[in-house]
């Protein structure tokens, strides 16, 4: 055997645990779930083929499916753009050349590395209507804060607020994007008499659009799979105001043992994400500017 052949074998041997894990625990369940979505399957007894019934019921007879899909869409439409604006804004601020800037960057990035479960648990205390920090501060200026997570008018917005807490993750990517913008563009613009606003809107933002596009796509995908904070903080309540699609899918799969139905839900979600991502890619020609393009 040639040296290259031996090296190939060694390489495959080393990655084989990952390949085996991927095939067994990702690829196989992924493919299997297509079949399961056409069956009635309770995990214990063998799946029973029922054709398109799961999809038919989802579309026509399950109001919670539409309610949760709408909640999720609403979350994506509000939280993702907000996250982009907050992330870009923060990155612009933290791109300044001031003393101790690396400390500020670290401080703003830190929340994004705290596990979501821990953040959610802490926010449950922060948003406690009686003894929470937020209502405590509001109380000092004479405002009686709402019962954030227990009030159906506020619970959804509380989760949006929590989403912004982790904006440091995307902020770092925006910051890297800002560092990538050639300095000579700013120099030329300044010589031409462009002010700060013009430089920001004509150079910074257009140059940052590939990064914004990346974060937008990732944010949309993440938003459609939104689960953990709602599961921990509100369990879908109050009054279904925070019952997101993935939460309902989880209930169907693991609480009601409706794995066939849940598989159908997962594939509808997958199809939805693919379509929206495709639409986003279709729009990028209009607003994403790649250097040298």
């Amino acid at each position, binding site marked *: 055997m040639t040296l290259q052949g031996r090296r190939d074998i060694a390489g495959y*041997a080393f990655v084989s645990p990952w390949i085996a894990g991927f095939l067994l625990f990702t690829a196989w369940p992924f493919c299997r779930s297509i079949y399961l979505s056409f069956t009635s399957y309770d995990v*214990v007894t063998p799946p029973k083929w029922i054709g398109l019934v*799961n999809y*038919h019921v989802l579309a026509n007879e399950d109001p919670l499916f539409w309610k949760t899909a709408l909640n999720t869409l609403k979350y994506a439409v509000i939280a993702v753009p907000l996250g982009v604006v907050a992330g870009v804004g923060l990155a612009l601020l933290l791109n300044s050349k001031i003393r101790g800037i690396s400390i500020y960057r670290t401080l703003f990035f830190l929340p994004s590395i705290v596990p979501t479960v821990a953040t959610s648990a802490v926010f449950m205390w922060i948003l406690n209507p009686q003894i929470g920090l937020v209502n405590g501060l509001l109380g000092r200026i004479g405002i009686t804060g709402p*019962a954030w997570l227990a009030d159906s008018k506020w619970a959804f917005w509380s989760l949006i607020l929590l989403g912004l807490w982790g904006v440091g993750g995307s902020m770092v990517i925006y910051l890297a994007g800002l560092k990538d913008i050639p300095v000579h563009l700013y120099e030329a613009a300044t010589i031409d008499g462009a002010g700060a606003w013009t430089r920001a809107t004509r150079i910074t933002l257009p140059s940052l659009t590939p990064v914004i596009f990346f974060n937008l796509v990732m944010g949309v995908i993440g938003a459609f799979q939104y689960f953990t904070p709602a599961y921990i903080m509100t369990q879908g309540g109050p009054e279904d105001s925070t019952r997101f699609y993935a939460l309902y899918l989880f209930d169907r799969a693991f609480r009601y043992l409706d794995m066939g*139905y849940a598989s159908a839900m997962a594939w509808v979600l997958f199809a939805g994400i693919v379509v929206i991502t495709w639409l986003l890619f279709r729009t990028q020609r209009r607003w994403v500017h790649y250097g040298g393009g």
Partner: protein
Amino acid sequence: MAGANRRLIGWGVAAVLVAGIYALPTRSTDEMAARKYPNRIPVRFWHMWSAEWKAVVDKIVDRYNKSQDKYEVIALSVPGSAADTKFLLGSIGGSPPDVMAQWNPVIPTWAQEGVITPFDDLMSPQEKATFDHDAYPVVKAVGAYKGKIYGIAIGINLMEIYYLPQQFRDAGLDPDQFPTTLEGLVADGQKLDRRDANGHLTHLGFLPGSYQQMTPYFGGGFYDPSRDKLTLDTQQNLEALSFLAAERKRLGFDEVTRFQAGLNTQSAAGGWPFITGAYSAVVDGQWRVEQLAKYAPKLVYRTAPIPAPVGGVAGSGYGNGNFMVIPRSAKEKAGAWDFVKFWSGITHPERAAEFYTMGGWLPLSDKVANAPIYQAYIKKYPQFKTFVDAVRSPKIQVAPPVPYQVFVNDQVQKAEDFALRGTLTPQAALAGLQSAVDEEVKRRKEMGLDE
């Protein structure tokens, strides 16, 4: 030559590493657990208790292992959040426990799917006759599905009233004349409520139980065993929901939410707001008696049955509990059944009575309740007697034994939530409950599932 040796060693190390990674997860639970009695037949027992409760379970298991020389029960505490999934996957994968203690609403679903085995197949005719004759109706109901026994209760949970007599006296009420109607208790509760200058609740006189808990007292309920039918949108259920909604409206939904949010509501380790006097009267379970003895031994309190409304059904209530199930694919069913008999006291109630006192659990039968050790326990904790008296009642209801029980429970809670927030009228909330369950039943039919 040296280079060739180095390569050989390198390959050897690589091969060992790769093989090691594949070999890592091969040790089974049995191998890891230290066997005290390696020559006996192992009986694997899963449960969900932890902390102080786990110590009680271990003690009972130890007592069983010392009581005979054929089986060794090996107990494993499984995290509650993953217990059901672990059990199902174990059952499908051929590695289930031999017996499991449960309290989740699993019996109808697991029985219908054939995951658990009916105890009828394991009991001798004599044992079956004893159980049928001795066990309280609620004990039988908790474990029953389609006429068979799938679960043996080892501790029923009931909710009754806990109250602080001194607070009643301070409000000019006589704690010795505790209200005998729900209306009377609500009226007393109003006299005990306290608000601050801004009108915010600082103390609650009486907080009723949940909708599921309170409905039987109004003559309602969510299942009619005589017709084997769900009963959702009924007049009695409406009366119960209307009562709870009216009471919450009087207090102010937002007010109750705020009030409760400021309290320590941890269920264990003495974190119960009743201890700090936040409520004068509250509905809670019998396990609080044991906890109060441990964490607030000086607290002067009493218990009383939840009073029914005028014209309602006294002595009813809603029960659930801890019960044993045996998987159909269990390897050692005989040993598992032997252990269940030992703990539950079907065959030796006097011996088992002690186990019930260890966890502050309600008895399986009068034979357990009348055992000297159990009577001594009641004498030690007189507040417990309210629950022991109540558990005998044939009017206590359990969760509807339908395979989609979790779904029904979720919908009942949702209806309660909508009505108590005032978003929907009780009528509309119940109509929504009926409609959601009807849709689910229809969906199950279309999928060819059992109703």
